[in-house]
C-alpha cells in the first residue's frame, strides 16, 4: 500500500522510463541489477513491468502484412520526377546568409561613415579648439554683449578675442563661415592692425587644427572606405555564387 501511494506521488524510485528501458533489456548493468532487486520487494512495480511486457507482446503479435503488390519503380514514373541534385556542400549553403550579413555590415558602416561626416566633423574640429578658447569665450561674453550694444551692428565689428570666442562659441559654424566674419572685420577697423594680425594668427591656428582634425578625419574616411569596399565585395561575391548554384540546381532538376 505504501508503495502504491509512492507510485501515485511519483516519488517511486524506478520511473516509467527506467522500467520501459528495463523491459527492453537495455540500461547499465548496475541499473538493471538495482531494478531487479527492487522488483523483488515491490508488488506495484512488478505489475507495471508485467503490464509493459503485455503491451510489447500485443504489438509484436500483430501480424506482419505482406506487401499487397510490388513497389518497384517504373521508368516512366521516375522520369516524371527526376532525381534531385545533391544538396549543396556546407560552405556553399552559407553563401546567401553570408551575402545578407555582408550587406547589413555594409549598411551599418556606410551609415556610420555618413553620420560622422563633414558637418559633425567640423564640429569635432572646432570643439577641440573650443576647449582651449572656452576661457577666452567666458571672459569675452559680457564684453561682446556690451560691444554689440554700444557699436554699430557690423557683423565683423568685434575685437580679436571676440573673434576667437565667436569661433569657439558658434561651434557648429563651418570654418568657412568663421572666416567670413573676419573679412568685414579687416575692412571695418583698419586702425586696429595689431588686433587684426592677432586675429590672423588665431585664424591660422584654427585652420591648422582643422587641417589636423581633417587629417584624422581623412584617416577615418580611408578606414571606412576600406571596410565598405570589402563588405560590398563579399556581399556581391557570395550573392552571385549562391545565385549561380541555385540556377544550376534548377537546371539539373528540370
Amino acid at each position, binding site marked *: 500500500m505504501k508503495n502504491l501511494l509512492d507510485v501515485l506521488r511519483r516519488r517511486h524510485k524506478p520511473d*516509467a*522510463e527506467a*522500467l*520501459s*528501458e528495463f523491459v*527492453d533489456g*537495455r540500461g547499465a548493468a548496475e541499473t538493471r541489477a538495482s531494478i531487479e532487486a527492487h522488483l523483488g520487494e515491490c508488488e506495484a512495480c512488478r505489475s507495471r513491468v508485467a*503490464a*509493459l511486457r*503485455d*503491451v*510489447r507482446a*500485443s*504489438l*509484436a*503479435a*500483430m*501480424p*506482419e*502484412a*505482406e*506487401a*499487397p*503488390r*510490388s*513497389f*518497384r*519503380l517504373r*521508368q516512366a*514514373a*521516375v522520369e516524371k*520526377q*527526376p*532525381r*534531385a*541534385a*545533391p*544538396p549543396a556542400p556546407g560552405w556553399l549553403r552559407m553563401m546567401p546568409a553570408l551575402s545578407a550579413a555582408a550587406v547589413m555590415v555594409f549598411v551599418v558602416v556606410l551609415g556610420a561613415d555618413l553620420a560622422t561626416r563633414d558637418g559633425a566633423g567640423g564640429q569635432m574640429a572646432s570643439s577641440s579648439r573650443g576647449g582651449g578658447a572656452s576661457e577666452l569665450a567666458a571672459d569675452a561674453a559680457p564684453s561682446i554683449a556690451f560691444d554689440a550694444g554700444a557699436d554699430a551692428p557690423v557683423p565683423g565689428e568685434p575685437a580679436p578675442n571676440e573673434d576667437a570666442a565667436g569661433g569657439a562659441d558658434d561651434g557648429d559654424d563651418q570654418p568657412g563661415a568663421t572666416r567670413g566674419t573676419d573679412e568685414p572685420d579687416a575692412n571695418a577697423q583698419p586702425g586696429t592692425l595689431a588686433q587684426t594680425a592677432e586675429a590672423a594668427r588665431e585664424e591660422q591656428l584654427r585652420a591648422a587644427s582643422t587641417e589636423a582634425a581633417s587629417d584624422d578625419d581623412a584617416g577615418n574616411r580611408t578606414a571606412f572606405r576600406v571596410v565598405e569596399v570589402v563588405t560590398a565585395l563579399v556581399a556581391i561575391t557570395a550573392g552571385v555564387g549562391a545565385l549561380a548554384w541555385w540556377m544550376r540546381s534548377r537546371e539539373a532538376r528540370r
Partner: protein
Amino acid sequence: MLNPAPEASTAGADAELELVRRAREGDLDAFNALVETHQRAVYNLCLRMVGSPAAAEDGTQDAFLSAYRHISSFRGGSFRPWLMRIAANACTDELRRRHRRPAASLDAPIAGSDEPIDVPDAAAGPETLALRSEQRAVVVDALSRLPADQRLAVILCDMQGFAYEEIAETMKCSIGTVKSRIARGREKLRGLLAAEQMSGRKRHE
C-alpha cells in the same frame, strides 16, 4: 514477427551500399533491388502509422519515389533508418492529405475489416481467429490515439525490432528522446488497452 535488419551481416551491408551507390548514378534496377528488400517493412510501417491498407499503399509508393528522388542525399551509414525516415515523412503527408485520425473505429461494419488478410493459424479454431481479429482492431485503434512521434517510436521498437540507436537515427533525435517517447507511448497504450478490455468485457455480458 519482429523484423530484424536485413543486412545483418557486414557483407550484406556492403552489398546494400553497393546497390545504393549504383542507384545514385541512375541505375533504376539497383534501386528496385533495394525496393524488393525493404518494401514489406516500409509497407508495414505505413500500415501501422496511417491505419488503412489503401493509405498505406499510397504512402509506400510515395516513400519509394521520394527515396529515389533524394538518393543523392544519403550520406552513407545504414540505409534502413534513412529509408524509414522518408517513409515516416510520407506517412505524415498521407495523414495530412486524408485529414483524419488513422485507423478505423471499432464501430466499423466488420471488425478488423481494414486489416489485411493474413494466413490464419491452422491449429486455432474460428473462435480464436475472431477474437484475435477484434484484439487486432483494438490495438490498431489504440495506436491511432497516440501522438505521431510516440506512435512511430513504439512501432519501430516493438513491431520493426529497431534498436534505440536506429530509432534515434530514423527520427533524428537523441536516444534520451527515443526512450522517453517509447515509454510514454507504451504507458498510454497500456491505459487504452486496459480500458478497452474493461468495456469489451462489458459488451460481451
